[in-house]
């Protein structure tokens, strides 16, 4: 019985570990995107994760983080605005910030810009940024 549980918990590689242990615990894809972007160094564009690197080596960890980042971005960039608004609502709730303050900060600072992975399709980036701006405006409209 114990060995069965151990088998379930044991991860094959850095991708599985990242997906099942870290990302699965997050409530929405926007939270996953922001988290994954935060593991990337601003200066070098390289991804770092202490835990994953210790288990699977820095190279595997970096690859897993980069692939996951691209995947989550791709999902969010092609989401209809209605669903993106839901994502944003969940993210605001999870962040425990006051919604109007959150919306104001995101509209002013546009922190979602740094959440875009490197070397992705430029039109997809434009679409993502545009949809986030619209989703924020929808949330603001609902607050009024």
């Amino acid at each position: 019985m114990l060995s069965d549980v151990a088998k379930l918990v044991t991860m094959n590689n850095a991708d599985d570990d990242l997906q099942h242990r870290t990302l699965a615990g997050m409530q929405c894809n926007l939270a996953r995107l922001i988290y994954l972007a935060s593991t990337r160094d601003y200066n070098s564009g390289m991804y770092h994760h202490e835990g994953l690197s210790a288990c699977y080596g820095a190279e595997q960890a970096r690859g897993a983080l980069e692939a996951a980042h691209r995947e989550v971005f791709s999902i969010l960039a092609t989401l209809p605005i209605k669903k993106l608004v839901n994502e944003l609502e969940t993210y605001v709730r999870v962040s425990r910030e006051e919604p109007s303050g959150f919306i104001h900060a995101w509209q002013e600072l546009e922190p979602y810009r740094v959440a875009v992975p490197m070397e992705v399709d430029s039109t997809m980036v434009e679409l993502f940024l545009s949809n986030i701006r619209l989703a924020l405006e929808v949330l603001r409209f609902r607050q009024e």
Partner: protein
Amino acid sequence: MMAAFVFGSVAAFLVVLLVLMNRGDEAKEFASSEPHHQARHESHDSLQPTELAIRIFSRDDREFIALTRSARLQSLYQTERRKVASHWVRRTSREVSMIMHSHRLNSRQSPNLRVSTEAKLFCQYVQLRFLCGLLLFLIQLFSPHALRDLAFYAGKLYQRIGGALPGAAAIDRAVSSGNSATL
């Protein structure tokens, strides 16, 4: 005769204007963000151009925004979609130019060039560049949904004409069923 000449001149002028507009916008965008774009073109998980176009011109998004009944939101939506759609058209146009450029370089060294194939390819290239220019013009002048709206309007007009001329609609149905039977 004179009318045909004037019409031809205006059409030629419009074509030149569209091509120039397209080239100007392209050059501007290309110069401002080339390294950025170059890097981003090397994507492995990007959507096909048609899939992207479907997402950009999505009816669901438009209806969702319309449901809010907010003039400000609808105006922002139009502005945002115009920006993304223009970007998509310019990128498509630029990419096809790059493909043609590398094809031209390669074909210079090719010993077995087929004139008919090259001419056909060039015609398709000119056609696509013209379409991109026309799309940019329509997007700037109306909205990214202008073409879809026009198609919808044409459909409504067809229904109206069909309603006003029931005999013609019956003939049309008979022709359609005849065509499908022969296919």
